[in-house]
Each structure stands twice: as C-alpha cells, then as structure tokens.
C-alpha cells in the first residue's frame, strides 16, 4: 500500500492561521490501512486541530469527512458541498488523492496533513516496511523476490556492501535486515547462489521518478 504519516500538528497549524472554516478529509483505502488518514485518524485529527487552533489564538470551525477513495473523481464529488463551505481543506490522503481534491476544488487552499512516504507492507500490527520503489524496471525475477532497489539503503544491484552488521542487519538501521543477506540466503536455499554471481549492468532509471513525470498511455482503453 501507499503509506503516509501525520505531519507535525504544529506545521498544520502554521498552514491554517487566517482560515476560519476547515474541512479535514481522509481516504478509506491505503492511508486507512496504514493508520494515517482513514476515518479513525480524520476523526482524531479534526478535534485536535480545533484545539490546536484555539490554543494558537486562531479559532476555526472544523468539519470532517472520509472519502471512499480520494483518488477517484466520482468519490471526491461526495464532499462538493462541504468543500464549498470551507475556506481550507486539510487532506490525510496520499499525494495523489490530495492533488485530485486540489484540482477539483481549485479555489480552496488544500494543505497536506500527512507526508506520503513509501510503498510498504504491513509487516506486523503497527509496523510498515518498504517493499517497492516504483523504479519502473522490476528486478524481482533476478533477486529471488526480494527488492534491492527499495530495501537496500544504497539500491545496490550486485550484492551486499561492507555495511552488513554482524547480526545481518543494515548499518543504517539495526532493525532493517540487509536485504542482500536475505537474497543470498534465499538463493542458497534454492541451490541457486550461482545466479547472483553475474555482474548486473547499470540500471535504466528512465522509467522511474528520476526519469521525469510518468505518462502511461493505453490506446486500447481510451474513449
């Protein structure tokens, strides 16, 4: 899922000074799954923002809504009325959902209530870890189903660097496994360690965010 995490409330307060009627909106898909922008989080943040603004000396009226999906125009329509009454919107959806709302209600300032951070898996309750970097050139077929682009701190393509800790974790975070250690273990278990001995050439990043904004066109689906 796309993961996000709340911005510091202080930052949201900074955005909202001068506004009077705030609409806090969430999205019931990815950001709900990662406990950043579902109904529960929206209904927690809305009163908190009211209190924060009151204590800041800038009282606001706060309303709230959680959309089925903030990245689909028909679902965004559901808040048209509430948005028309608000003079600012705080969105807890990912950057995609936020931008659709900003586009639909172009005269109402939209402020991010979250930072969109990763494409992650909920590994355990309360723990999400990276799985994908949307690099546009998937290598999972070469790396035994474990992604070194998203899960190696240096996105190495040819094996582990010298920073693997004695216990097999990554030097930059003692709770993050060295993904190359896991790749080697899986290759060994399959009797295919040999597969990892081939030098992989420089990666083509042109289909990743580094290559510029994506424009994916499918003529067969166009009307």
């Amino acid at each position, binding site marked *: 899922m796309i993961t996000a995490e709340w911005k510091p409330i202080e930052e949201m307060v900074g955005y909202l000074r001068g506004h009077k009627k705030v609409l806090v909106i969430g999205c019931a898909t990815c950001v709900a799954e990662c406990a950043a922008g579902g109904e529960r989080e929206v209904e927690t943040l809305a009163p908190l923002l009211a209190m924060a603004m009151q204590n800041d000396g800038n009282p606001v009226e706060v309303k709230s809504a959680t959309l089925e999906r903030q990245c689909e125009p028909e679902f965004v329509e559901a808040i048209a009325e509430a948005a028309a009454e608000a003079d600012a919107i705080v969105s807890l959806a990912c950057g995609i959902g936020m931008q659709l709302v900003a586009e639909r209600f172009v005269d109402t300032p939209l402020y991010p209530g979250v930072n969109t951070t990763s494409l992650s898996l909920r590994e355990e309750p309360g723990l999400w870890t990276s799985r994908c970097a949307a690099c546009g050139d998937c290598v999972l077929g070469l790396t035994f189903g474990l992604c070194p682009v998203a899960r190696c*701190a*240096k*996105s*190495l*393509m*040819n*094996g*582990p*660097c*010298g*920073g*693997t*800790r*004695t*216990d*097999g974790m990554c*030097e*930059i975070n003692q709770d993050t496994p*060295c993904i*190359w*250690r896991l790749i*080697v*273990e899986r290759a*060994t278990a399959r009797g295919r*360690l040999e597969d*990892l*001995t*081939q*030098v*992989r*050439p*420089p*990666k083509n*990043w042109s289909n990743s965010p580094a290559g510029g904004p994506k424009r994916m066109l499918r003529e067969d689906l166009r009307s």
Partner: protein
Amino acid sequence: MSLRAGTKLEKVLAAGHFALTTEVGPPRGPDVDAVLKKARILKGLADGYNVTDNQTAVVRMSSIAGSKILLDAGLEPVAQMTCRDRNRIAMQSDLLGAAALGLRNILAISGDHQGAGASGKLKGHPGAKGVYDVDSMQLISIIKGMRDEGLQAGGDALTSKPAFFIGAAWTPLGPPIEFRVLRLAKKVAAGADFIQTQAVYDIKAFAQQMAKAVDMGLAEKTAILPGIIVPRSAGMLNYMNNNVPGVVVPQELIGRMKDASDPQAEGIKVTLELIEQVRELPGVKGVHLQAIEAEELLPEIINQAGLSPRPEV
C-alpha cells in the same frame, strides 16, 4: 605483461614486490597545507596514497583535488570515488578530469551511506539525497569500459582512452560470509585490478576467505592488499568490533591492548605482527596500512616492518 596504466603501484605489483598503500584524508577546508603536511610525513613510504571521498558524508576537499596536490608533491595518489554523491554522468566526467590531471589509480566504492552518520562531534549530511545511480560493481565496469573500449556507459565514444589502474574494496568477513568471496569474484570480473580490504584483525578467519579466493584463481587476476589499521587502544578495537560492520577483532587482541602498559607501543607491535601474518598468506600481494589521525606513527612502523625503502620501479 603490458601495464594498464603504468602507475607506480601497478609497476610495484607487476614486478612482484610486496606493495604498500596508505591513506591521506583530505581536510574539511581548502587547506593545501594540511594535505602537504601529511604528504611530508608520508612521502616515499608507500606505493600509493588513498585520498578518501567525503567519508562518513562529512564534506572534505574533493578526492580528485587532494590527489592532485599529492601528485604534485611527489606522492602517487589512489583517488577514491564513491557512488553516493554522483550519478554516472558526473562520475565519468570526473574520471576524465582525473585522468587529465594525471591521476590514474582509482578506487571505486559504494561509499558510506549519508544516513549512517558521522561519528563524534560531526553532523554529516543525513538529509542529503543519496544518488546510488550505479553501484561500485557497475562503476568498476564503467571505468573499465572507458579504459579498454574508449566508451562511455551510454555507448558514446570517448575521444581517447583514459589509462586507469582500477581498485575496489572487499569486506572479507562481513555477513553473508558465504557470498563475500563470490562478490570479490564479481568485482574481479567487472575489472578490478587491485583490491584493498576492510581492516583485518582476525587473521585465521581472513586466511580462510583468502584461501577460497586463491582457489577460485582470484589472487592471480587481481592484487589483494589486506587492510590493517594501527590499533591505538583497547577502546578503539572494541569500538571497531562493535560498530564498524565487517571488522572482526578477536577478544584476545582487545585484552592484549587493555593489559598493555604502553598501548601505543603495543599497537605498533600488533601492527607489525599483523603485517607479518598476512604477508605469509598465499595470494596476498601487499598491505593497505592506515593509522587514522596518527599518520606520524607510520614511518616507524613501515621501517620496522622492513618495508622501507620502497622499491624503485
């Protein structure tokens, strides 16, 4: 045998001498004198002098500029280049610039991650965007392609071929241990002419990894120089053992430093023993000797190890 780049380091190795490299960390300022001061202490003592590339993500004088200062002072530099700060375009451009300045030993490494953090009082740049467009393996092959084919990574031709003696790093004792020799083999296949290893203290474990490398024929295709860092206290060894990945320090060595009445003298003694021990291992072609922030100890150590004067080649 025809030489790749004809650097002193390459010639020393080609002639079958036991090679010696050491390190000169550039200053955190544009201070030529700081580089020259280290150069004066170390001149004539080694066949190559590694100039580090913003290690621990703390900004220092560029390794290429530092290398050029050493070269002009009569020391042969090994310019380090990490994959952390530049994409393949900037790297190749800097490589051409290095070649133009007469720098021909290049050590291609991944580089300390910007988030791994500077130690001590330094902050580093944990908020920097790490580049890692290519990894060290790919950088080695890019340098080789420039040198041997006269081609850029993108396929365009260079107007002439830069001569490089290509170095790479090896962490023989890091996990997953079974892959470390295979990774060395990849670096050799990619084009590494010489290898400097992470600091070695556990000679027994290193000997096992070396034996595998020799069995695979790697020690003939590349010159392996184990890294030795002069220990200066039990605390330093403990720190490295616990905090520097890939460095394994036997407890008896830590104990020995702890019990020493003069830790510095003991550290020198330990260093001399380590040099002697790795020298006896089949396939070892030299040492990469470092005395971090204590370069003044090196002349005595190198003399006592019988590694001075360096061969004329």
